[in-house]
Structures are given as C-alpha cells and as structure tokens.
C-alpha cells in the first residue's frame, strides 16, 4: 500500500505538463469564471487601455512624415516581431512557481516560448499550448531567468525571483564596479528571442554589495507590473526565432529566458 501510494505520488511530479489549465475543460471553466470577474474590473482595464493608447499615439506622431520630405519606402527592413492580443484568465502569485493561463492557443498562433507583456511591462513566457489555451510562467517563478539591461548604463543582468514578494525581484550578475542608482529603470535586453528590447521590467529599489567573495552586486528591483491584477496582455513572437535559436544552438549558447 505504501509503495503504491509512493509510486502514485511521485509520478505526477515528473509529468507536470500533461494535466494543466491549458486543458480544454479546465480552461473553459476558468474562462467563464473570468468573464464574470471581468465586469468588476472594467474601470481598471479601461484605464490601462487608455494609457497604452495615449502612449501609442505619441509614438505614432514620431513616424508621421512631414509633407515636404521625400519618402523612401524601407522595403528591405523586415518586421522582426509579431504581436497578438490575449487575456489572462487565471493567474497565481502566492506560490513559488506561479503560472498564468491565456485564452488564446495554437489556433490563434500562440507558440511555446513567446514572451508576454502588458502596458506596464514584461510578464512572462509561454510554456505550453493547447488548441484554445496557453499556460505560461510569469517572472514570479523561481526558475525564471530574464535577460535585462540597466537603462542608464546599458549594463546587462539577469532578473530572477526569490519567492518572497510579488512586487519585487532580483537583478543578478551585475559586476561590483558598475554604479547603480536607486530608481534606475530595468528594461528587457532583446538579446534573446523572447522579448523585443526596451520593455520595462522594474526599477532598482535597493543596491547592496553581496556578502563574501561575490563579484556581483545584490540588487533588488520593484517590478513594474502589478501581478495581482492582470487582464489584457500582448504576446510577442520573434519572427526569426527558429533561425536565431538554431544559430545559438550551433554556437552552444544556453538561451536564457
């Protein structure tokens, strides 16, 4: 009896991807539940969308051509990133390995490994996809590694989460000699195929010299995204992902998140 139970209790640990909320039935129930909950958050959602629209209008103004300039179409430049809209129908923030579920799946073009963000900043990465739903792990996952840069100095680091607070994360691998100020913005680096460069991740809230012989600073950052109220998000696909990944693999570079 004991052996039986041990066998049973060990197995689902390993095959954890098989049964999750990307499942058709589970996803369906969560979807309905979210539709109801959404009514209570409409005000907040509208405010977020308005903010994003304002930002986009500002950016659009930069691209508008003056009447007198000569326009040369840049047809050699290929669009590198493709974007999808989706909605988070389930999210957790209190465990050590937190996942979220999206209401879009392979049918809508979502694939494993795509990045997820909203108007506030980077959220996470798609982990597994079914026909209609997708599950991803957020920055609030203790195995997350997100390649990021410090905006003011351009120094590269890696964002990880220690499981303590849903509002804070760590920035690892920033060498001791780098000067980091509290309030510095942390952005995605774009050095891998998950996120385009320049998506906000957080702001530096505390800088300490790590104890012992460590060559790196101990940096705590306040995350930009409010993970406790996520609703509409964007999923981004790097259109040359396969090529880049193959190249990285050939060069034997471990691709961080």
């Amino acid at each position, binding site marked *: *009896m004991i052996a039986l139970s041990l066998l049973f209790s060990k197995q689902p640990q390993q095959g954890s991807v098989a049964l999750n909320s990307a499942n058709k039935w589970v996803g369906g129930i969560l979807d309905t539940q979210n539709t109801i909950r959404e009514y209570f958050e409409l005000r907040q959602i509208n405010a977020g969308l308005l903010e994003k629209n304002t930002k986009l209008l500002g950016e659009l103004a930069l691209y508008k051509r003056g009447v007198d300039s000569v326009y040369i179409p840049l047809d050699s430049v290929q669009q590198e990133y493709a974007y999808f809209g989706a909605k988070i129908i389930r999210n957790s923030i209190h465990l050590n390995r937190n996942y979220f579920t999206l209401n879009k799946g392979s049918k809508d073009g979502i694939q494993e490994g795509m990045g997820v963000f909203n108007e506030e900043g980077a959220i996470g990465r798609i982990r597994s996809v079914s026909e209609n739903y997708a599950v991803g792990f957020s920055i609030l996952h203790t195995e997350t590694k997100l390649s990021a840069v410090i905006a003011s100095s351009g120094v590269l680091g890696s964002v990880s989460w220690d*499981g303590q607070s849903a509002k804070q994360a760590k920035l690892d691998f920033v060498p001791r000699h780098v000067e980091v100020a509290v309030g510095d913005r942390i952005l995605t680096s774009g050095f891998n195929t998950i996120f385009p460069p320049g998506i906000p991740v957080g702001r530096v809230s505390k800088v300490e010299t790590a104890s012992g012989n460590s060559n790196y600073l101990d940096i705590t950052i306040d995350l930009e995204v409010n993970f406790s109220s996520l609703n509409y998000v964007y999923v981004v696909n790097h259109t040359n992902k396969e090529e880049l990944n193959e190249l990285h693999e050939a060069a034997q570079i471990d691709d961080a998140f």
Partner: protein
Amino acid sequence: MPFNSFLREIGHGLLFLAVQVIFLKQLVLFGYAFLLLYPLFLLLLPIRRKSLSLLLISFVYGLLLDAFYDTGGMHTAALLTLALVRNLWLEALTPTGGYADIETPHALNMGVGWFILYATPLLLLHHLIFFGLDSLGLGNWGLMALKTGSSLLLALSASLVVQLLFYSKKRAL
C-alpha cells in the same frame, strides 16, 4: 455501497472541488494564508471506507485540483499522504466502545474537541507536504512555515464553520 449514496458522495466531492477552484482559490489572506478546504471532503468520508478506495479517490481528486491550480502534482501528493494516514489515525483515535453506528467522523457526530484532535495532524501533514513541495530546493523555510501555519489555522476554522453550518447530526449534508 448503494447507488444513491454513491451519487451523493460524488456530488459532495464535486461541490467541494467547485467551491475550492472557483472561490477559495482567489482568497489568500495577507499573501500567506491559503484556504485549502478540500481536504475536509476526504476527512469526512465514512469511517469504514477502505484505504485503497481512499487512495484512488484522492488521486483523482488531487489531479483535478492540480489542473486548476497548475501545481503539477503538489495537491495530489499531499492528498495521497493524507489518505494513507487517515485510517491509521482514525484507528488510533477510536473512542472506548468503538465508533458504534457512527458513519462519518464529523464534528457534530463526534464533538468539536474530538474533530480538532482528528483533523489537526492530518491537515498539518497535508499542508506541510503541499508547501514543502512548493518551496523544495529554495531554502526559504521560514516563509514556508509561515504559509503552512497560517493556512492550517484558516483551514481548521473554516472546516469547523462549514460543518456547523451545513451538516446535520445524522448524515453528511
């Protein structure tokens, strides 16, 4: 087991599951105290239920919960351990004269004091395994202990309230 009570038990279990994944999952007090009420379903199964069927029930039940929580086996492992130990603990707690004709071990049948004695170690075990698996390999045991302790208190008090509100002396629900 008569077909009727079989159906009632399934309905009972689905009700617990629905309440857990639709309402209680959203509720985490202060970011520490999870309200995991579903082990109560397993605790309140009839006293004479065989261990093997308890294990099977908790396996299926755990997998369903894991699917909704995206916790990949954590609920299953915790529930299976609970199921394994439950009958042994029930045996150890047998009152003088045995359980006689009492069918389910709920607080109204057995008394609040007895129920707390019955439920606390089992829930503690369940919560320890759940949160232990969650923080496996991370080393932040203080946080884990805090989560376990606060969730345990919440689960115990919720279990008592639910029983006092929704159960009658004769039979479950």
